[in-house]
């Protein structure tokens, strides 16, 4: 098990709490009728996001999914701008055009969330090709879920990745269900990890709710990839507490199952670990939690007071130049 400093511990905990608080606030705002459309919450998957991002350098890239709020926050996104985008406001990350499913900050290495399951994986190949040509030693983490692993896009991308030896770490967050389709009907985390071998790359399955386990596995993969040895795959076994989207009635799983996974809450587990190791005190934890809540509250206020986009600019931004 890797060792981390108190500083890092605080940082990771803060990020996970921010993700949790953000998701919960987004949910509240949605139920209060303030958010248009739907959202895909990643409550319960915080460790997978934070642990993976912790393995990256600031100028590395990520490609995210429709359930990618955690990835964005862990990448260091501005919470205000994220919340504003949720609210569809003009000063959100995407100027109100993208919403929850398409948050991006290309300039800071966040190549975007994606509304198509598996939509980002083929792009990851291209990013990898480009990074290799640019030769600056940067890597990409391409996040996707068990649902995407079943697409043709996944397969083609795995092939191409290995053919072109792209500097990409593929992180599969297996949360046990595509939408309602249980992954264990065709595979599981272990078997998904063994896909990698078919494509000539290393693969590993880890407990996705154990932040440090994730961090260790992804760090190893990043190191491998960054050294020019090609792509690799990490499968994080995890669970989402909420339904697929806001309209999910959870008919496909049992309350017992949900409760069981809740008892494996990644945040609580991390807190236990750090307190056991005397890295953090209860006081520290309380502070961090409070901090996260405050940050999210500020984001909410920011978003709610932000202006809506100007309708007359509707057709702008389709083609370059603006």
């Amino acid at each position, binding site marked *: 098990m890797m060792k981390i400093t108190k500083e890092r511990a605080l940082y990771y905990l803060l990020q996970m709490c921010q993700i949790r608080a953000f998701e919960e606030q987004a949910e509240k705002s949605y139920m209060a009728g303030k958010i248009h459309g739907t959202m895909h919450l990643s409550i319960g998957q915080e460790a997978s996001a934070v642990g993976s991002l912790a393995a990256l350098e600031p100028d590395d890239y990520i490609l995210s999914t429709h359930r990618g709020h955690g990835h964005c926050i862990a990448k260091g996104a501005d919470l205000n701008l994220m919340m504003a985008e949720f609210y569809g406001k003009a000063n959100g990350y995407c100027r109100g055009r993208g919403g929850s499913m398409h948050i991006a900050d290309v300039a800071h290495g966040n190549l975007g969330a994606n509304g198509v399951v598996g939509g980002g994986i083929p792009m990851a190949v291209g990013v990898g090709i480009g990074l290799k040509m640019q030769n600056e030693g940067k890597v990409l983490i391409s996040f996707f879920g068990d649902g995407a692993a079943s697409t043709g896009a996944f397969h083609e991308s795995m092939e191409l990745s290995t053919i072109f030896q792209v500097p990409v770490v593929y992180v599969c967050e297996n949360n046990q269900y595509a939408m309602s389709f249980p992954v264990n009907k065709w595979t599981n985390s272990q078997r998904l990890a063994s896909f990698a071998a078919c494509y000539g790359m290393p693969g590993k399955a880890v407990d996705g709710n154990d932040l440090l386990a994730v961090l260790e596995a992804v760090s190893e993969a990043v190191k491998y990839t960054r050294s020019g040895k090609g792509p690799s795959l990490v499968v994080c076994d995890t669970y989402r507490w909420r339904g697929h989207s806001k309209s999910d009635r959870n008919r496909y799983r049992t309350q017992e199952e949900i409760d069981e996974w809740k008892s494996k809450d990644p945040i609580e587990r991390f807190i236990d670990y750090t307190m056991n190791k005397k890295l953090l005190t209860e006081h520290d934890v309380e502070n961090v939690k409070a901090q996260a809540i405050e940050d999210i509250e500020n984001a909410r206020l920011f978003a709610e007071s932000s202006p809506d986009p100007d309708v007359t600019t509707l057709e702008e931004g389709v083609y*370059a130049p603006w």
Partner: protein
Amino acid sequence: MVREITYLEAVREAMTQEMERDKRVFLIGEDVGKYGGAFQVSFGMLEKFGPERILDTPITELGIAGAATGAALIGMRPIAEIMFMDFTTLASEQLVNQAAKLRFMFGGRATVPMVLRTPAGSGTGAAEHHSQSFENWFVHVPGLKVVMPTTPYDVKGLLIESIRDDNPVIFIEHKLLYKTKGAVPEEPYTIPLGKADVKREGRDLTIVATSIMVQRSLEAAEQLAKDGIDVEVVDPRTLRPLDTETIVQSVKKTGKVLIVHEAVKTGGFGGELAAVIAESEAFGYLEAPIIRLAGREVPIPYNRELEYHAVPQVENIVEKVRELVGLKV
């Protein structure tokens, strides 16, 4: 005297010259490397640029399109080749949902400067799965540009321009045009996207045609000239964005218009053109209905004769022009 090369050579020259000029440009597609490309378009390019910039792939249309999109997203300028336009069906998720939309979706804070080249069209006996033309599907997507060049001169200029354009461009070549020859300047040059070309001036009727149908229309025009019928042929060159102005001015002048394209008539690009004309100032100058001559309502058949009659040919164009000019419609 400008030298003459084939349409195919012009495509190769455009790619080569751009790759020499800009290190960010690379080519990715099936069999583009060692094989030299299914139609030999990229023959010799692997030797020139090496495997780092001429990327061969297995059968992965979606992968190719996605790779181009991703690379473009972080600043490269890829040219992706899909061997037959028929297979863009497999690539369309990445083209339509991703490449076309990333810029807008991310609030204008992303750019996808890629070109997707693909040969379309029938006449080689390749039948149902290797002969189609889907330009109208991509014209329908905001965020994409769609280019359909006709001559060797146009194809070189337009391809260089497309590579330099910061948007995803669907660049549609025609198999039967690959062998056609024309005068092409040696040095690199560009032709602006969104600008039509009047290939032949005339008084009596306007033909708006795309790709190989421009060639056939010009041939028809020569025949008709012998009978004193003077046909104007307008080649839009870029389908999206469309140079409406040139087309409208031509129709205003002649009062009669025939639209000719290879793709199936129903739901084809001709419907879009007809509506554009009808909605414009040109409406008040029409002496006859707007007529479309296009592909028949069938998949492209195998038998040579059947294949021939499934799409407009020179004699069909001549006949339709006579009908229109003689006010039989």
